[in-house]
């Protein structure tokens, strides 16, 4: 069997035209089960458009977008348009496109560290809380393909790492393919198998470290961006949440970290790349 037959989703020279302009053109991309593909690129480079073509929300004017049959998709869009007059609890939001039991709701929220929000109103959530809830909703569908449009926007730094860790964990437990958009150019997700750098077209692609060293990438984002990407192995098994709570990698919460500041290396292949923020400035 060739690669294209097993792909969850495959874009073949796909492009979207608006008026006379091409929002994005000539994108080749495929996501396999268990693979994390990250799209990066500056504002207006066609990342969201590419994701929407992959999802079937937008039909390519050129080329093709093919999804495997019977694929369940979990989608975390960039933003929601919930009017303040709409009474919508988190629990209800989780059930938006699929029926879930209470236990399933709690389980999904527990994974993203948002369990306490289950009865909160959607419009009272902060940006970071909203991201966790949207992620929980997408996971709860047990998707074959997870599409995340900037899953860490508005999330604080510690939470960012927790969410990235969670995403690679989900890939492991659900075995799903993940297509992720990151606009934070410097935090390219640790476990990404493939990074595609967009700028109206595919500018370059490869593993995170390949891309960071690529001339085209450095030309697009400046030479310093290459140095800002560092391969690292991180040493946290928990993060400190605002309000003094501690959240472990498995999503559980406790009131303090009980002297657990020991370090350990993650067992996985160590291709973890993360920002050194001070360099980025």
């Amino acid at each position, binding site marked *: 069997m060739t690669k294209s037959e097993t792909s969850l989703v495959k874009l073949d020279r796909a492009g979207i035209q*608006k*008026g006379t302009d091409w929002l994005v053109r000539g994108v080749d991309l495929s996501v396999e089960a268990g693979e994390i593909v990250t799209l990066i690129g500056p504002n207006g480079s066609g990342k969201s458009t590419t994701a*929407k073509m992959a*999802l*079937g*929300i937008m039909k390519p004017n050129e080329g093709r977008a093919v999804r495997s049959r019977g694929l369940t*998709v*979990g*989608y975390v*869009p960039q933003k*929601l*348009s*919930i*009017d303040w*007059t*709409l*009474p*919508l*609890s988190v629990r*209800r*939001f989780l059930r*938006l*496109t699929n029926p879930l039991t209470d236990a399933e709701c709690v389980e999904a929220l527990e994974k993203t560290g948002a369990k306490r929000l289950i009865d909160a109103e959607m419009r009272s959530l902060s940006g970071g809380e909203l991201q966790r809830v949207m992620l929980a909703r997408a996971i709860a*569908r047990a998707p074959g393909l997870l*599409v995340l449009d900037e899953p860490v926007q508005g999330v604080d730094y510690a939470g960012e790492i927790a969410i990235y860790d969670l995403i690679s964990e989900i890939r492991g437990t659900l075995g799903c393919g993940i297509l992720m958009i990151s606009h934070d150019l410097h935090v390219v997700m640790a476990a990404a198998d493939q990074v595609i750098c967009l700028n109206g077209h595919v500018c370059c692609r490869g593993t995170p470290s390949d891309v960071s060293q690529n001339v085209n990438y450095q030309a697009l984002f400046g030479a310093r961006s290459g140095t800002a990407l560092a391969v690292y192995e991180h040493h946290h098994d928990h993060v400190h949440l605002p309000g003094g709570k501690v959240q472990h990698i498995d999503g559980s919460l406790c009131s303090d970290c009980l002297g657990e500041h020991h370090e350990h290396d993650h067992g996985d292949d160590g291709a973890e790349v993360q920002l050194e923020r001070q360099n980025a400035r």
Partner: protein
Amino acid sequence: MLDDFFTRALVAGIGVALVAGPLGCFIVWRRMAYFGDTLSHAALLGVALSLLLSINTTLAVGAVSVVIAMLLVLLRRNDTLSSDALLGLLSHSALALGLVCLAFMTWVRVDLLGLLFGDILAVTRIDIALIYAGGGIVLMVLALIWRQLFAATVSPDLAAGEGLRPERTELIFMILTAIVIAISLKIIGALLITALLIIPAAAVRRLSATPEQMAVLAAIIGSASVVGGLYASLNYDTPSGPSIVVAAVVLFTLSLVPGGLLVKWMRTNRSGDQP
């Protein structure tokens, strides 16, 4: 029972409010108030056509509204004008066209005020039958598409990305709105129909914990506004539409007063009386 014109107006008005409540919630959630306005202004064109072709007014108004709704969907796809500019264009051209047509038809005498502001005297048994039949169908279809429409309201992209078809659902919703506007014309009048869709929904927002609860409460508040407004209309000889809307606005204003504040105000007043 339906011999009395006032009873007929009450029965018809409550029928309209029961449908307008749930539908109005979606209009508010989806920020489509101006869309409702556009359809109701286009209703005048429907009236003119019904007189010209001597067919039933409600049917003609419904047909024109559905055409306008579909025209809007088509024009919006072309990206020529922004959505609100398109709505304004359609709204006012249909209203103007309707009024001009009515003026040309010198052989018919039309109660223009009745059309614009509603006329309880004009409600017939056939109107009641149309309201309940049409309203029943609208509620049934709304119940069928509820889940999908709700998902599309929260995020059209999310709904489309996860395999629902929000565009189709939205078109059905627009057609339902067109039907409700057609059946409300005689009670509320073309200029104020949107108010019966929006104000009850806005009034019950703070009292509702779930979307379904809000829909039911909006239907109840709408019915209360109809009863209050029609009685006022009868007693003070005011046009029925504005009277119903004023009643709804009164209920909305009451909903803004926080319950706790009211109790506190009464307590402080009482303690202020004591020496």
